[in-house]
């Protein structure tokens, strides 16, 4: 049995492959489970699921260090898991509990943990790109080789903050990577109604940074594009824009009837382009990992999510006095 897989001439060791698989599976399980739990009515607020897009979060974060940063979107669970946020803390947060990663103050749309370089999900479309410019500036000014990555949707790529950030990062030559997750919809609006049939990656040209398109279902394609951009940024080569074409499995938010979808669209993607399926196929076919090894991970992940949900449900609520804390460091 081989022990590594070559991607553009570089070896991915088996243990890394298994680690990446575990990240993707954890995200998938987290999201599928939330889909079910949300329907019971026990989860408060809005939940935006990432299922189907796992290869993007996993492929980028696989190339990041703990001291690198990411800024995420309203659809942030996948990015948070991939960057190393505590899964149980995330689940408890989504349930609004005191044990949540934000002590119940943030919820699904504000999951963050600066200690692992996760600058937050963001309820504001386009909120993140300026933030990573700031992290890039910090790296530049203090002379570290940290890198910062922002995730934005196809819809978010029309927000002025995103476009301005491309330019700022290029002008300041910041160690930043802008990822666009083009999942075919901004809420109910397809890209042909919010941009003019042109790859978002093409926008990079006008600002002076490289822009590329990759298949967002293919972990290895994402991984490779991410590696190249992140290495370049780390080495002082400036920012990049990477557009990942992908399809999301669930609606915009839980509860969305998805009347805007083509019939069969999701079923087809699940059957033919699923990132976990593709990953399994290439790694197993290449003889590097065994199906049994993947199933073992699946089982562990399932157990983790089961526990996370059970613990979240039982965890204590915040106390009303918490309302008044954490507004300022001092006031």
């Amino acid at each position, binding site marked *: 049995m081989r022990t590594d897989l070559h991607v553009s001439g570089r070896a991915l060791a088996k243990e890394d492959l298994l680690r990446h698989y575990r990240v993707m599976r954890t995200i998938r399980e987290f999201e599928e489970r939330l889909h079910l739990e949300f329907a019971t009515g026990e989860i408060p607020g809005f939940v935006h699921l990432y299922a189907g897009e796992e290869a993007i979060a996993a492929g980028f974060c696989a190339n990041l260090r703990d001291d690198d940063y990411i800024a995420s979107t309203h659809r942030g669970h996948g990015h948070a898991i991939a960057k190393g946020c505590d899964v149980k803390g995330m689940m408890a947060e989504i349930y*609004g509990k005191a044990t949540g990663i934000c002590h*119940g103050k943030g919820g699904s*749309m504000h999951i963050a943990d600066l200690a692992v370089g996760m600058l937050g999900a963001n309820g*504001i479309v386009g909120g993140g790109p300026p933030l990573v410019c700031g992290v890039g500036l910090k790296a530049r000014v203090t002379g570290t080789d940290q890198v910062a990555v922002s995730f934005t949707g196809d819809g978010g790529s029309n927000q002025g903050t995103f476009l301005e950030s491309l330019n700022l990062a290029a002008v300041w030559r910041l160690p930043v990577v802008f990822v666009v997750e083009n999942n075919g919809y901004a809420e*109910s*609006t397809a890209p042909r109604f*919010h941009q003019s049939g042109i790859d978002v990656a093409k926008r990079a040209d006008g600002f002076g940074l490289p822009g590329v398109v990759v298949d967002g279902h293919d972990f290895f394609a994402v991984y490779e594009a991410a590696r190249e951009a992140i290495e370049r940024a780390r080495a002082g080569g400036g920012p990049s824009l990477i557009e990942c074409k992908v399809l999301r499995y669930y609606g915009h938010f839980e509860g969305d009837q998805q*009347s805007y979808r083509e019939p069969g669209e999701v079923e087809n993607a699940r059957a033919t382009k699923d990132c976990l399926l593709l990953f399994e196929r290439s790694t197993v076919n290449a003889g590097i990992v065994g199906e049994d090894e993947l199933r073992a991970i699946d089982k562990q992940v399932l157990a983790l999510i089961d526990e996370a949900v059970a613990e979240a449900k039982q965890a204590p609520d915040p106390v*009303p006095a918490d309302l*008044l804390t954490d507004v300022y460091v001092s006031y």
Partner: protein
Amino acid sequence: MARTISYQQAINEALAQEMRRDPAVVVFGEDVAGGMGTEQDKDAWGGVLGVTKGLWPEFPDRVLDTPISESAYIGAAAGAASAGLRPVAELMFVDFMGVCFDQIFNQAAKFKYMFGGKAKTPMVIRTMYGAGIRAASQHSQTLYPLFTHIPGLKVVVPATPYDAKGLLIQAIRDDDPVIFFEHKVLYTLQGEVPEEAYTIPFGEAEIVREGDDVTIVALGRMVHMAAQAADTLAAEGVGCEVIDPRTTSPLDEETILESVERTGRLVVVDESGPRCGMAADIASLVATRAFGALRAPIRTVTPPHTPVPFSPVLEDAYVPGAARVAEAVRSIAVKESV
């Protein structure tokens, strides 16, 4: 007028009726058509909560989905209004104002003044506000004080389906830029609404309850909290006059002042924050203009100076409720009634 519909339906009906009446009325915003790809599909979203549902099938050329580019399309509303349309643009949540505020407060609001009177900018921005659905810090704010502060804007905060329809029709026909605040928790509220079109003038408060002991001023969702508190207090022998100004700019100062002249006591209940908010604004009005009548300190009931928290326990502690209103009233009314 026996027909009962929801606040959301009242808004939808106002839009549909005005679009039928006036071809200059256009509606746009993110997903306001919603799934335009689906060929005149009746299932098109019609906005994230369905408030504009049915408009796009009826007016396919005048209901437009936009990119997520609030500055561009809110600014386009200002430009279109300058050129003769009557756009109704949707800013999905008022929390998103920060990406497009310039086009509202420096452009639309100021054209008429800066241009020496030679401009007219008849546009409406419909927007959702308020806490209560566990939408957390960036989707639950109230924020109308920020718009009320700006000269040139009119700010409308309907509390009932009846007011929502009449005030929205007025907003569309009005020649100044209007920000129309829809409380997401009120969308399902039912109420009697005439089928025909009607307008409610801006700057005319509604007296929701009459009473002689204490004046309570409240807006939007808080009107219902105030009315509930008034009912409780009536049983305790305290008569509350509940006033809903309905628009914060213009503000019906006279109705508020007249009431306080009579009651000598004021409680302002508001869902916007305590600092430079509407409660402070109305308290200041009364402290400067009806001081002589005041027989007790003014009380304000607002959320604390914190962002809106996510957890239901915390959010419920954040939003002022009827109990807090009643308590505030008792703190200034009780002494005399004892």
